[in-house]
């Protein structure tokens, strides 16, 4: 029983961050129809930037994040403006190829700078534990959970009740009509991409403490993110957070109950099973 509770708790904590990662991808898709296959490599980049800041200045990832977020957002703006935007409206597969290419560039760039050895970035809270009854939680996971949900709620409120949020939803629902109302569609797309990359930079710092990192990990994060958005529905806010929890929990069950290699398969097995029986995804309504 305690193992069961442990798995649930661990899964919920990590799953919330997966949900956050997927919100970034879903937002971008919502305003521009672009599925970013270099998503995971931007997470990777965020992690290695934290590592670099630790090596150079001994900064804790939770401090570095205040530097990596603006840096990555500027980078994201440039990438979107000069690489992705010119491709919008072209064939979907061309954008897939472009972002896959970008993924390889980022991956090999990181490999060139940091080498291929797995690396770790220490943090002060890295080995701290929180004990609730029979459940033992790692403090970095608790922080990740708190920050992820706070950000998700913040995003939700932003989308519902600010003009920028309403512009994002308007561009998603009808870009032509949004432009006729005086919404600068191109600007909304750039800002949304930058926002998504900023979220990734935060998620990277949240996932980092205690996790060994290597340049080739990006694809794994891209795939986890894709699983989550497909489960939740590309633009379904609540569905995406729910999807994050499902993937997080299946991963936790896999690692606790099964062997390491078999355990890592769990999220994919669960994903395939859900898709077989509920191809419309987790939630009832198809949109919203």
């Amino acid at each position, binding site marked *: 029983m305690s193992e069961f509770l442990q798995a649930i708790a661990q899964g919920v904590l990590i799953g919330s961050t997966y949900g956050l990662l997927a919100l970034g991808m879903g937002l971008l898709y919502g305003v521009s129809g672009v599925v970013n296959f270099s998503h995971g490599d931007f997470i990777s980049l965020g992690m290695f930037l934290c590592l670099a800041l630790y090596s150079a200045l001994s900064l804790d990832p939770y401090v570095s994040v205040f530097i990596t977020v603006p840096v990555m957002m500027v980078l994201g703006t440039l990438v979107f403006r000069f690489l992705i935007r010119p491709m919008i409206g072209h064939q979907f597969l061309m954008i897939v190829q472009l972002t896959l290419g970008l993924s390889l560039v980022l991956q090999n760039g990181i490999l060139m700078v940091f080498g291929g050895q797995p690396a770790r970035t220490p943090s002060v809270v890295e080995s701290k534990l929180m004990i609730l009854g029979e459940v033992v939680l790692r403090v970095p996971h608790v922080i990740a959970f708190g920050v992820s949900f706070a950000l998700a709620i913040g995003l939700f409120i932003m989308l519902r009740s600010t*003009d920028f949020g*309403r*512009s994002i*939803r*308007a561009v998603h*629902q*009808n870009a*032509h*009509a*949004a*432009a*006729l*109302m*005086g*919404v*600068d569609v191109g600007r909304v797309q750039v800002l949304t991409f930058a926002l998504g990359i900023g979220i990734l930079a935060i998620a990277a710092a949240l996932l980092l403490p205690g996790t060994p990192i290597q340049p080739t990990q990006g694809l794994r994060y891209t795939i986890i993110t894709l699983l989550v958005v497909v489960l939740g529905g590309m633009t379904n806010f609540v569905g995406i957070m729910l999807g994050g929890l499902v993937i997080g929990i299946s991963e936790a069950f896999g690692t606790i109950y099964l062997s390491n290699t078999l355990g890592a398969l769990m999220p994919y097995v669960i994903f395939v099973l859900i898709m077989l029986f509920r191809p419309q995804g987790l939630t009832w309504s198809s*949109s*919203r």
Partner: protein
Amino acid sequence: MLEIENLVAGYGGVEVLRDVSVKLSAGEIVGLLGANNAGKTTLINALSGMVAPMSGRILFEGRDVTRLTPRQRVELGIVQVPEGRLVFPEMSVRENLQLGGINARAKPNRSRQMEAVLDLFPRLKERLSQDAGTLSGGEQQMLAIGRGLMAEAKLLMLDEPSLGLSPLFVKYIFDIVDRLHAEGLTILLVEQNLMLTLRHAERCYVLERGQVAIEGPSDVIKDDPRTRSAYLGL
């Protein structure tokens, strides 16, 4: 107020409008008539900045707006209510109206403007928190016009406002159009419904294959034998 001089425009290098010149004075209500594919929607999309002109000029209140972005034009008061209404289906009526007033010039007066729009369309007041996608066609047309008014339009361009509406709603919408005109708004009315437009517009332009075929006061256009042939595309 609006002068279109020798406008040539189209999509992907194909000319849809050829040498179109149109003039509107402040406070006028002018009809833009023509068969399908005559170029009516292309013309107002060129006015909105959604279609880049190949040559020619557009002057609004004496200012050359030919190269301005759609956003800049909305800020100047050139506002389009698009064909098919294009309300944001998964947003509430209130949010749709708020988006209408999102441009820099209209934004400070948004709450006052919202009251005026809701006075004009009491029906929308009852449905403020309902999703726009659940409204009837007529109600969506009210919302689309209301959204355009929220932008503090000086020139309101209505693209096929009668399309797909029941006769009762058509009458209601055109009563509103008359009322807006009486209040001094400049209106460009794009319609396929010939008699309806001739009844409500002071002057009309008839487009035929991307060119102005006939222009003049509505009662003259009505009796011109060329109107019917241009209209039927013969």
